[in-house]
């Protein structure tokens, strides 16, 4: 029951953002040259940025892009972690030790530094869409090690479970054991891992964007919108500049609340 309220809030936010994008007369990259750094008005509810772009539309688009990207990246990370953890748990000791060592190599560097290094080494001339894909792909490809360790320890417990030994003794094939028994038992472990990834990826994207390594303009993103706060003239002209950060914190709190409430149920 408790999980429903944050889920409902998130659904309302997504619905609101989708409606804003659909019903607004402006696109996220449309520049209204007559309303540069405009304050709140009936035309632009939360004002415009320094290029005259509608802030409400851009925040709505950033929310949808961020959530979609983080969800896809989270799904990829969880899949990689599941494959890696299962392989390590069901291999012999030497291969398991090697796989754990590989994950430890990734964990030996601070995550944001590793992300920054990998993201900055992507091609320099890329379209905004390509930068968005690159950013979330880097997050997906580097986010798995911690998750894989959790899956590994969970899968180790499952490997030694009595029903697993019984399944082996009954002559079930490895594929049957995996599909019919192991994966359903791993689901309660994988779902929290996926949910934990979402806020972590959104924060990482915002931090990368603030360092100039996030999604390219004119595609709106949390990171790029945080950079607006650097403009003191804009901060003086309108308090709506704080809208992206306030909304980002709300989204992260909702996601955090969903993940902490799902975990005990799992």
């Amino acid at each position: 029951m408790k999980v429903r309220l944050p889920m409902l809030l998130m659904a309302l936010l997504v619905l609101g953002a989708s409606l804003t994008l659909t019903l607004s007369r402006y696109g996220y990259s449309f520049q209204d040259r007559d309303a540069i750094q405009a304050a709140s008005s009936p035309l632009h509810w939360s004002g415009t940025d320094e290029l005259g772009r509608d802030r409400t539309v851009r925040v709505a688009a950033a929310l949808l892009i961020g959530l979609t990207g983080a969800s896809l990246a989270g799904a990829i990370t969880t899949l990689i972690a599941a494959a890696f953890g299962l392989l390590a748990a069901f291999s012999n000791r030497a291969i398991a030790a090697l796989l754990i060592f590989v994950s430890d190599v990734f964990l030996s560097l601070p995550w944001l530094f590793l992300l920054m290094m990998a993201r900055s080494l992507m091609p320099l001339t890329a379209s905004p869409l390509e930068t968005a894909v690159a950013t979330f792909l880097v997050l997906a490809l580097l986010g798995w090690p911690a998750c894989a360790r959790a899956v590994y320890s969970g899968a180790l417990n499952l490997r030694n479970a009595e029903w697993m030994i019984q399944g082996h003794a009954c002559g079930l094939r490895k594929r049957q054991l995996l599909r019919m028994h192991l994966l359903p038992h791993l689901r309660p472990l994988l779902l929290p891992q996926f949910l934990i990834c979402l806020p972590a990826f959104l924060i990482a994207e915002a931090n990368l964007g603030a360092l100039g390594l996030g999604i390219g303009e004119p595609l709106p993103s949390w990171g790029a919108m945080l950079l607006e706060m650097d403009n003191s003239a804009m901060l003086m002209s309108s308090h709506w500049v704080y809208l992206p950060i306030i909304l980002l914190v709300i989204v992260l709190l909702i996601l955090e609340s969903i993940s902490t409430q799902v975990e005990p149920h799992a």
Partner: protein
Amino acid sequence: MKLVGTIAVRAGRTLLLLLAAALGTILLVRFAPGYFSDPREMDAKYSAVARTEMQAETGRSRLVNRILLDEAESWLKGDFGESRQYHIPVVKLIGGRARVSVILLAKSILMGWLLALCAALPIASLRGGRVLCSLPFTVLLAIPTAAMATACIVSDSGGPVLVLSLLVGARDFKFLRSLLEGAWRSPHLLQARAQGLPTRALVFQHILPNAAPQLYALATLSIVTALGALVPVEVIFTVPGVGQLGWSAVMNRDLPVLVAVSFLMACVVGVAGLFTSRSLTSEAV
């Protein structure tokens, strides 16, 4: 004897991890687009012969084993190579900056721990309203480091130490609260509380000694958290530390500096993990 063996195995593994991290960095940068671009090739003052020579030099340095050998040679010399953007030995670049970063990290981790402990101890002993009391820390965790740093600059209050302390404090509080909650409700502590033992004695004689192994592990986590946030904090506050140097090296594909910074960061994480793990002694005994 067993303890020495365990320490040797762990130290060897940490060393292997460090080498793998350095090797990974080299490979990552080597295959990055634009790594071999040389701005001198665009300069009209160089003759065709000089340009051909430059291209030949670039061609020779494309080989991974050549890069590895050059790096190994510079490391053996002790200067960690020459920076591609500043044209000075990396060891000179890192020396002063490491001091700045270490002081920043030490202050932040200390303040973060104080904040987390001072908040977690009373909140863990509360009967109700714990979620509400923890709300400020939950909100702090939901604010990206870069946004927190920018907010500090905009409001002209606080600095890098405050941002890092708040981040470390919020992260540690989450773990400390659940750790102390469990300890506070353990049967032997209930017994001690029923007998009227003062809170100070409960904390210093029972809770903290029992939670020591988890606190050691949490110390490692604090270091990793602070190191992760070091880059955006130093870049936004323009602190001349290792994080800012790493960012500048990444942006300019400065391989020698990048490898040295990665190795340094991996060293800190690896050594912190090695020394803070109490399981080391428990495994051996």
